[in-house]
């Protein structure tokens, strides 16, 4: 199977696949940006925002999750470098590590949600709760999407689809995965640190 069509160039001189991914990511910037903007307005404007105390927020777990996600980003980029060097064993290993780290993030997130709901912080309990569950939930959905994308890449990679001549799809999956990491880098201080 050939991925040649991914390398087709258009008038911009950018491969179609890459251009498409960046247009999509630009729209994602606006999606998350709109949520963050309304968060800023309501947090600064409303005296009843209701930021919970630290024992409910759980800064330690969120910090762990941040480390998990930046590690998964580096394993993803190492998977790309491995396939660009035609090292398929390392490619598969790094991709599996990326998926396991993504899964770890989700499991910690589920644990966090249970703890918060148990402590009375829910999507309807306060403005903070609404924003927290909406935005981290949206981020978690993106992460699940990334895991599916990565699993597809792993299955295709196992069949030997990718090589140093044909790694574009791995690169685009990586772009998406790093974007999900990047969004978390912003959500982390927004909800847990300030």
């Amino acid at each position, binding site marked *: 199977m050939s991925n040649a069509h991914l390398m087709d160039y258009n008038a*911009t*001189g*950018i491969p179609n696949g*890459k*251009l498409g991914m*960046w*247009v999509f*990511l*630009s*729209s994602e*910037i*606006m999606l998350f*940006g*709109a949520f963050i*903007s*309304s968060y*800023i*307005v309501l947090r*600064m*404007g409303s005296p009843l925002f209701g930021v919970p105390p630290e024992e409910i927020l759980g*800064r330690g777990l969120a*910090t762990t999750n*941040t*480390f998990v996600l*930046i*590690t998964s*980003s*580096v394993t*993803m*980029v*190492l998977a790309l*470098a491995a396939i*660009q*060097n035609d090292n398929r064993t390392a490619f598969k290993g790094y991709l599996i590590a990326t998926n396991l780290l993504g899964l770890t993030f989700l499991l910690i997130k589920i644990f966090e949600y249970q703890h918060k709901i148990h402590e009375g912080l829910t999507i309807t309990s306060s403005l903070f709760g609404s924003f927290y569950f909406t935005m981290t939930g949206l981020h978690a959905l993106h992460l699940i999407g990334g895991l599916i994308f990565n699993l597809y890449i792993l299955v295709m990679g196992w069949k030997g689809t990718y090589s*140093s001549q044909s790694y574009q799809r791995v*690169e685009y999956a*990586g*772009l998406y995965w*790093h*974007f999900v*990491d*990047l969004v978390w*880098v*912003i959500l*982390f*201080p927004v909800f*847990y*640190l*300030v």
Partner: protein
Amino acid sequence: MDEFHLEQKHSVKPYLLVFLALAILTGLTVILSYAGLPHGMAILVASIIALVKCTLIAAFFMHLRFESKGIYAFIFAALFFLLGLILSLIPDIGIR
């Protein structure tokens, strides 16, 4: 693919250095959040660290350093409208 191209594109050392920087900045921002800074200062410090981390991820992991201007155009358009959105909301906070 010539040798220069290979070398420029496939070295993993920059990735590991960026990872190290991201880990240190994450630790730093968490430690500073316990330092008891005034609220405005805490927001400023956390924002600057988050922006540096995002720039590192975009520049190195997403290879924006090596991308063409065409892709920058899309990102700057999105960031321009995002900035517009945030700035246009400031009067709403200001009049309270």
